[in-house]
């Protein structure tokens, strides 16, 4: 039965991916632009879901890792201007180092304390960016001299390819032995330890993986948008959106996070005519999903099938 569900989900994902590939031939550049952002967001959410859904650690500061990656890439590009690829790799590496510095001591903490530390990390990063305005551009943000491409289609391909690669890696990881051990240590750390698994090591690995993907995605987003600013890659509000997307799509599904993120970004865009009230409506929708369908979009679909 689980095999069947898995393969069905896989086929559905493949089908969606194929549909996404054909999009540039029949939709406008405007929609492609929205989807490009949504795809990067999907990677943020998937990386978050690996940490929360599987390792059972609530990371309130996904934007700490994203921001590190984004600003590293932006500063590197603005100062010395190496090839974009170098900047993106550097962004991923710095996010990894930052994630390690944050996680090694923080993983000793349990429950709300871990969440709080990650939250504070974001606030500190935000303050640091404002204080070192000379290098980072402060509250206004900084413009990078290079972008990946000026063509909406080209950017869409980059984002889609990146999303698919990340989804395959993260989904594969979550279904591998490592994913199962993570899930076990998230639900019953003592039990997992008694079975001889090194819980801390696995959680640390999950955090590092999450950090690298967040950092690289953050850096790529910068080279898509051409700017790095606090309000787009560091602000707590962005982190909240990432968390909402993951919970909305369904925890512990990885691929659900993609659905959640695309839904959230697209809904936010379509509700834009409502003006100021659109964030209100999106938050209300997300709250309703949490209250009435706590398993999320994909989680609910899977459950219905299991019952059949």
């Amino acid at each position: 039965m689980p095999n069947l569900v898995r393969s069905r989900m896989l086929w559905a994902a493949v089908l969606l991916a194929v549909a996404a590939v054909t999009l540039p031939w029949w939709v406008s550049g405007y929609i492609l632009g929205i989807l490009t952002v949504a795809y990067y967001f999907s990677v943020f959410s998937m990386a978050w879901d690996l940490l929360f859904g599987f390792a059972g650690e609530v990371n309130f500061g996904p934007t700490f890792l994203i921001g590190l990656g984004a600003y590293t890439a932006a500063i590197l590009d603005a100062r010395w201007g190496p090839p974009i690829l170098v900047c993106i790799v550097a962004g991923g590496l710095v996010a990894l180092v930052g994630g390690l510095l944050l996680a090694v001591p923080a993983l000793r903490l349990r429950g709300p304390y871990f969440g709080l530390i990650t939250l504070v990390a974001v606030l500190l990063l935000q303050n640091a960016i404002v204080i070192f305005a000379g290098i980072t551009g402060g509250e206004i943000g900084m413009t990078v001299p290079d972008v990946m491409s000026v063509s909406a289609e080209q950017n869409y391909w980059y984002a889609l390819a990146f999303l698919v690669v990340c989804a395959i890696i993260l989904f594969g990881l979550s279904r591998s032995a490592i994913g199962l051990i993570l899930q076990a240590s998230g639900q019953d750390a003592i039990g997992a330890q008694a079975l001889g698994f090194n819980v801390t090591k696995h959680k640390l690995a999950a955090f590092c993986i999450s950090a690298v993907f967040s950092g690289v995605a953050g850096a790529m987003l910068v080279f898509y948008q051409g700017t790095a600013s606090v309000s787009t890659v560091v602000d707590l509000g962005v982190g909240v959106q990432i968390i909402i997307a993951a919970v909305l799509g369904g925890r512990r599904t990885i691929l659900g996070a993609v659905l959640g993120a695309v839904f959230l970004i697209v809904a936010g865009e379509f509700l834009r005519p409502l003006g100021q009230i659109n964030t209100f409506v999106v938050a209300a929708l997300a709250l309703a999903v949490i209250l009435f369908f706590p398993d999320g979009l994909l989680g609910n679909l899977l459950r219905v099938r299991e019952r059949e």
Partner: protein
Amino acid sequence: MVWLQILIDGFAISSLYALGAIGFTLIFGVSGVLNLAHGGVMLVAALMGWMLAGEAGLGTWLGTLLGVLAGLVAAYITYLMVVRPIQRSSAIPREEKEIFVLTGTLLWGIMIQQGMAYIFTDNPVTMRPLFPGVATIAGVRTPLNEVMIAVVCWVVIGLLWFFVNRTRAGKALLAASMNPRGLTLLGFELSRVYLLAWTLYGVLAGVAGVLLASFLGVSSNNTGQLTASAFSIVVLGGLGSVSGSLMAAYVVGYLETITAYLIAPTLRPMPALVLLVLVVYLRPQGFLGRR
């Protein structure tokens, strides 16, 4: 002279922080809920108070009173429509209730913030002082309002202390924070105790909200900041410990005031954040927390 000014300003700000954080810690202590809509509840009280006192022309005191009432209503809605449904939901596994309450209250807080911004815009507003006039303390001229706000904060905290320690209903509250099961065995209805806790919470957050509007002013943009500072004060003091929260409020309040006066106003939140990180790493239970 500057030191005296820091002493007075810091005391007023710290008292307000203490009042804001004490409701937050009460709810956590009694029912284990971290209410991330805390800033939103304060915001409702502050903005409603400001609107009713000023534009509706009801006068400062009546507006203040109704503002507190609005905060209470917001707290009830938070509990009855967000927190309780999640706690009672059978679709959410028990070990995940906590993260759902966090996410749910966070979303509700965003809804309050955006709703308020839609109605009142996000311009910062300041209520007219509750106590106009100027007081001179040891040669430092201080607005009377500032002094009186600190006094009001302490009166409210004192009343709370009296209620919790000296009345039957208050003692039930205290017992619920120690051993909820024992309390039900004694024949108390736990849901009524929780409702009482949220009532107290609403009043505390409401008073803190209107005082904030009268002292520093509020804007719907600061909602997250309000929640974050209450959260960090409570963690510094030790989750669930009321005296710890009071202590932490003064530490944070004075640290911020000293930084703002002597170093730079822009660096205001930094030392408190660094202290918070250190405390969480070195002593996760906070100043006075139980483990």
